């Protein structure tokens, strides 16, 4: 089974990388590397993950059409993008609006949304917008910390 994951996170965006210093980017990059390592280590035979990463959430219609992912991973907060649009408070709204759009156009496409230390209300909003699953983001750059995510993706693909 091949699982193609379209991974939307603001840490991949040029805007984020231009705004934050190298030390902070190193944390973020190490975190992503650990996820990538966990998904692509070939530990489970017969299941291959492919990750397409993007920091351009506003291009989701084009990217989904082009990449044809089996699953979407979607960060909740898009602070820099919201700031650019003149409303820092809308950092969550950006991803929720994209999620609503994805759900409308692709009713069966699994979308896992995540955030550091989510609260119940945020989770409710995400589920109302159409998330298949909401996870807490663990900012540890240790591959094992992400194995639950891997098995969850496999489960979603089996029940598709």
């Amino acid at each position, binding site marked *: 089974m091949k699982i193609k994951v379209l991974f939307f996170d603001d840490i991949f965006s040029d805007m984020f990388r231009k705004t*934050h210093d190298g030390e*902070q980017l*190193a*944390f*973020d990059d*190490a*975190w992503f590397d650990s996820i990538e390592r966990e998904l692509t280590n070939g530990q489970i035979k017969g299941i291959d993950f492919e990750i397409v990463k993007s920091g351009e959430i506003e291009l989701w219609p084009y990217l989904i059409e082009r990449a044809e992912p089996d699953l979407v991973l979607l960060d909740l*907060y898009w*602070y820099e993008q919201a700031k650019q649009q*003149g*409303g*820092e*408070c*809308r*950092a969550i*709204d950006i991803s929720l609006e994209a999620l*609503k759009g994805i759900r409308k156009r692709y009713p069966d496409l699994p979308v896992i949304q995540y955030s*550091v*230390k989510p*609260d119940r*209300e945020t989770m409710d*909003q995400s589920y*109302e917008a159409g998330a298949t699953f909401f996870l807490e983001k*663990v*900012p*540890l*750059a*240790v591959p094992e910390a992400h194995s639950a995510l891997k098995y969850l993706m496999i489960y979603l693909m089996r029940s598709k």
Partner: protein
Amino acid sequence: MERHTNENEARTRGDLVAPQNVIPAERFFKKLPELAIVGDEQSVDRIAYELLNLLLDSTGADIGQINLLPRGGRVEKVCIVKDGKPWLGADMGLLLYNPSKGFSGRVTSTGKTLVVEDIWAEVDKKEPNPFLEISGFMDRRYLEEIKKPVASSMFLPIKRNNEIFCTIELSRYRGKAPFNSADQAPLDDFAAQYGSVIINYLLDTKNRIALNTAYYKLNNISRLVASNGKIDYTDAVAAYRTLSAADLGFAFFRRGEGYACHALYLVAWCREEIREICFPEFKPSEDSVLCNSSEISYPVEGNWNCRRLQRFRNRIVTHTGIKTKDQQFLLGIIDKIRSYVVYPLHMLNQDLGAIHLASSRNDFCEYLHMSPFLSLYNALLKSFLLNERVVDLLSQVSLKIHNPGFYCLGGLKTALMQENRELLSNAKIIGALNCLDDLLTELHEKGKILICRTRSIHLQKWLRAWINQKRSHQPSIEISMIVTPAVPQNCHVRANYEHLETLFENLLANSMRAIAERQSHDRKVVGKIDLTLSKNGNELEVRFQDNGHSYSTVSGRGTPQMQAIMQELNGSFIREKQPYCVHLRFPYKIKEDQEVHRED
């Protein structure tokens, strides 16, 4: 509103007309309740028009003008009547005049009625003619149609206590008998007896209308602050434009944090034209009114060649990140300014901006200061801006803890795991890390307390409360709500109060305009607004209808705003044109009794 012209016609024919000793004020007062019924700008025009007609009829004058000059309010020509018809149009840009110039200026300084035999004579009572001194700067059409045909004029001051807050100007066409003391006496009596009452009423009506406008603007801003929406600064400035004597001005709104990295939103206006211009990074000079550390917390007066204004001009000239059209617009305003008063918007060490009220008239500062009501509006706006900044700051704190805060902590744990896994079994180290985690989590949560949240709202109850409130605000309008039997008892919609208020306040404002439009043709019509709440499939529908007439839209922003909100709420907005009504459809959920009781 036809004017009685018998006396004028008699004068034109050259008949002898006996001077009237008393101006029949009761004719005006009898009409007053009917004139004020609509309660919008038309009421002011009608009252002023009726007053001028009465005076024109009683004195055999052909052209009349009412000039308002309240301290801290709009100084303007509020009405001009020529041959019994209103001459002044809102789009004529003639609202400006300088109360210290011309014959009106002479009346303002002496406080006495002035009779002039010929306003075009080179010399008036051995003094240079003050009208000729300023006629070169006057609007050409005004000069051609209002001033050129007349000779004899009378200028009447209207006082409240010792303050002259209005002048009335009456003129006769050249060739007619000039005004004399017999004409003046009944006018002076009328002015002394009724002048201040009538003009105060006129100003009160104007202020009441402006107060309603300001009330809606402030409500809009408070809802925007509460809904995380972007504040419409242009809208917020409307009160300064309509309630002050400033024909030119700037409103500076500073956003963001820290002295160095403030963004500046500048709303500039020149008469009817208004523009919002953003300067992403604007560092004010150290003694600028925009800068809180300058310790200027009082209104600062200035004129066209003062250091502050010229410094601002230079900044606009040298600023590279501004569109040419915007730059020209700003420079055009600055170059027109002759006097100004600038009010800093400072609160709790926060420099939120400044309001710069300006005029193209020289020595005009005393009229530019804010009226008590405008000061109140200004204070409330300042509080809203502070609220907005606090919300921003808290949100930024929360986001900083989110990222990089949690990432740094994660990085520390990762490093410990990679470098010496055993350290993570050490109770002291784990305790310290947990403590740090708890602290960051708590701060992160606290940073989110001022966040806009949607909730389950019992729409029927909310609408009843809203309608009751509006019935007290708009007692002249009948508002009713019918709930069809199919509507389930405990159905709730997912929204926040600001969403609902914005939707229904917009619909109400539209209906009020439509009703006013119909009443302007038929004053006996009672305004009615009917709401019907019904169930439509899986949605709850509110049908909103009034008995008004269609009207030309003012801004056209209301409908897109309502559509955007309904889309955000996963509902729909449907508008029917024949007859005009709006349907709002909300997805709903039935709440269990237990949950409902807990909420109640």
